[in-house]
């Protein structure tokens, strides 16, 4: 049966028994109350009669005084006392039905006695025989009365005693019943408790005992209870199942723990074997776990590393105020530099947030990139050399054109100098004539023959032509010089349109014989970059455009500002690029030019330079129609 049923039965039976007990005790108590009232009334009657008896005794004493002293004046008092006695008897008669006859008889006798006494009041001669007769009569009456009074007194006392006894018996019965019922109730409670203990508590205790025992042994123990409330039986079965389940889980957990141990060992072995330094820091950036590579990386023992802040070794993970920079800790492939005391400072780290037992930790993998940095540096230097070499190559390519460009002004400068020399000789001859004070005619004639007016006018033009020629040469040389010059390591403001113009100067000779150059430079912007490298880009692309045009064609170069970047388009209407070649266009050493004509590095370098400027290059080409390269250079370059 279920405990709930037991509870209901116990509750209902307790209520029922309690109600019965209460009702029974209440009945008995009512009986006690009834007996008490009767006893009280009886006691009142008894006391009233005792009072009557006392009054009666006084009445007798008064009569004795009356008789002995023959004091007639007492007769009135005796009569009053008689009336009081009669009144008291009347009162008693109202409450005492059993004694009514005796009380009536008593009243009659008292009245008779009163008459006897009243008869003496008018007696003239007191020593008369009638006095003695009256005394005898009164004594006779009062003696009878006394007998009745004593009997009644006894009756009242007996009655009171009887009711008192009944009252006491009722009280005792009540006490006995109450005690008995309490005893029975206690016995019921004891038996009920024992029954509950045996049938409900004991099975639970068995389960608890077995459960405690279970903690100390690995043996299979039977939890199932076959006796007891249904819930307890079900509970024991559930615990049995649960225990078996727990055992299975424990076995599994043990296996998993072993596997985990092994995995830990493996991981530990792996962790200590990997060249990457792995660090586990807590939420405050304190180093909690490291692998062996960390010791090597930080050049310190484990004790010197653990429980230290990561910022001590890796300043990039510490904020200005020294706190752990969690955001930086979760970045990937971030390069950084270790503390200055560490000899090989270059590292690359990746971090992630991990939760271990509900607490945030950061797992940071640090790679030693000192070698790579060294290689990068070497590669960078190589690149620079390559870039320079390619630039030199392009300069070489441009050299003939540049030489031609220089040669032209030099030619007419030379011619002008020859003219100026002739002019000088004529002027010097004229000077001599003037100095020697030759005749004016002669001087005039010489002046006219030599057309000195023209010479003097032409000298200025010739000189200006020379100046223009030397200026052109100077500019070409200057542009070439600046192009050939290696860039600073730092970026600088570059006026992009001006740089394009400079590039056009250098490639002018390459273009002007077969290409109609159309420029539309509208960018009017300044970007941060390396001017020589960008100039190399423009020159490469312009030369390529020129090469794409076999005999004659057009090259368009435009610049414009689009959003936050400068777009520079270099377009030709040459032979175009096949789709096959488009795929390999920016690959190093890819060229469609004959051997010795191109290095195959031009576009690759163009691409690299643009990447270096955080820009990019797009190309579109239609075979037979032309090619357009668009350079995208951001205005701000971080």
């Amino acid at each position, binding site marked *: 049966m279920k405990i709930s049923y037991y509870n209901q039965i116990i509750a209902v039976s307790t209520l029922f028994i309690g109600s019965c007990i209460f009702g029974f005790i209440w009945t008995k108590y009512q009986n006690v109350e009834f007996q008490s009232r009767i006893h009280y009334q009886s006691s009142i009657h008894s006391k009233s009669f005792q009072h009557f008896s006392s009054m009666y005794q006084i009445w007798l*004493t008064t009569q*004795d*005084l009356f008789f*002995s002293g023959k004091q007639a004046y007492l007769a009135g008092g005796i009569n009053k006392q008689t009336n009081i006695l009669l009144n008291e008897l009347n009162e008693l008669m109202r409450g005492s039905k059993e004694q009514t006859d005796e009380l009536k008889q008593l009243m009659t006798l008292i009245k008779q006695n009163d008459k006897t006494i009243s008869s003496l009041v008018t007696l003239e001669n007191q020593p008369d025989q009638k006095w003695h007769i009256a005394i005898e009569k009164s004594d006779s009456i009062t003696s009878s009365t*006394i007998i009745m009074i004593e009997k009644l007194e006894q009756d009242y006392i007996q009655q009171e005693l009887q009711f008192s006894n009944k009252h006491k018996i009722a009280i005792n019965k009540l006490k006995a019943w109450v005690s008995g019922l309490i005893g029975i109730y206690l016995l019921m409670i004891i038996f009920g408790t024992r029954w509950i203990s045996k049938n409900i508590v004991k099975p639970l205790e068995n389960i608890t005992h077995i459960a405690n025992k279970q903690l100390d042994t690995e043996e299979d123990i039977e939890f199932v209870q076959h006796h007891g409330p249904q819930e307890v039986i079900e509970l024991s079965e559930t615990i049995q199942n649960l225990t078996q389940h727990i055992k299975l889980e424990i076995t599994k957990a043990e296996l998993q723990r072993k596997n985990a141990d092994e995995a830990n060992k493996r991981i530990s072995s792996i962790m200590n074997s990997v060249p990457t330094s792995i660090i586990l820091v807590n939420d405050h950036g304190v180093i909690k776990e490291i692998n062996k590579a960390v010791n090597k990386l930080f050049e310190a023992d484990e004790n010197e590393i653990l429980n230290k802040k990561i910022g001590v070794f890796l300043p990039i993970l510490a904020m200005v105020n020294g706190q752990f920079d969690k955001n930086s800790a979760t970045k990937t492939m971030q390069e950084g530099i270790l503390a200055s005391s560490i000899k090989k400072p270059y590292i690359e780290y990746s971090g992630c947030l991990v939760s271990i037992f509900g607490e945030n930790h950061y797992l940071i993998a640090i790679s030693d990139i000192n070698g790579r940095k060294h290689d990068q540096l070497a590669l960078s230097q190589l690149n620079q050399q390559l870039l320079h070499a390619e630039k030199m190559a392009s300069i070489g390519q441009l050299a003939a054109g540049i030489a031609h460009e220089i040669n032209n002004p030099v030619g007419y400068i030379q011619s002008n100098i020859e003219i100026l020399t002739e002019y000088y000789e004529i002027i010097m001859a004229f000077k001599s004539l003037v100095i020697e004070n030759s005749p004016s005619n002669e001087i005039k004639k010489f002046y006219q023959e030599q057309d000195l007016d023209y010479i003097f006018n032409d000298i200025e033009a010739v000189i200006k032509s020379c100046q223009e020629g030397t200026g052109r040469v100077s500019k070409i040389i200057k542009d070439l010089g600046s192009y050939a010059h290696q860039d600073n390591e730092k970026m600088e403001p570059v006026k992009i349109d001006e740089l394009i113009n400079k590039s056009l100067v250098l490639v002018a000779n390459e273009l002007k014989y077969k290409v109609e150059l159309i420029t539309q430079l509208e960018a009017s912007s300044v970007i941060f970059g390396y001017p020589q490298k960008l100039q190399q880009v423009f020159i490469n692309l312009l030369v390529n455009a020129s090469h794409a045009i076999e005999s004659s064609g057009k090259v368009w170069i435009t610049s414009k500002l689009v959003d936050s970047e400068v777009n520079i388009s270099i377009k030709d209407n040459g032979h175009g690029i096949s789709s096959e070649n488009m795929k390999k266009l920016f690959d190093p050493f890819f060229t469609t030019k004959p051997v010795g004509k191109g290095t195959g590095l031009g576009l690759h370098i163009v691409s690299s330079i643009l990447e270096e400027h955080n820009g990019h290059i797009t190309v579109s080409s239609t075979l037979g129609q032309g090619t357009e390269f668009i350079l995208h250079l951001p205005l701000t370059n971080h």
Partner: protein
Amino acid sequence: MALKAVYSEHKYVIGFNMKFIFPLLVVLYLPNTYADAFCALRDPVAQIKILYPTKTNQLSIVKQIDEGVRQQVKTALPNNDLHFGELGKHTLYIALQGQEKLGYIHVRSEQSKWGIVEIIWAIDKDYRIKDFAFQRCRSPKKKLIDNQLFKNMFIGKNLVELKTYLANDGVTANQTLLKIAPGAPELANVVLRCALKTLLLTQLVWKEELDKNF
């Protein structure tokens, strides 16, 4: 009133030769004489005859019981007092058989629960209780007088012997007497108190004259 033998403690002047003659005359010629000091409601003469069946006559001596006597009683019987009704003139009877003195008769009333109890006491010449009877008693327990064992507790006892029946309170009887009076302890107490007072007063008030003149 000439027939009455009027005695006064102070006025009683009689010649030595006449001391037997005068009372004798009184008894002889006035057999139903009432004493002036009436100690009882009823005439004790009939009871005297019962107590002294052989008596032929009696004499009565009236004496004054005053405050001095009362104080003496208080001393002799502590806690026993004479109430004011008992003060005044009282009569002692001398029972005679011819000229021979049979004894004395002393009637005393004692307050009880049911009014005054009058007991007539027969006292011998040695002031011992000879016999006694109720002259007036309203109590239903008055049959106690018929109990000879009870009577025997008094008969032949003088004042000193009777005092041995007193309980420590000096008023009630002890168990020696009470066990003889089952169901009537109060009446027994009244009888004992009355007996003690009677013997004491007889000796205090009348003894001197009785011893001297009779």
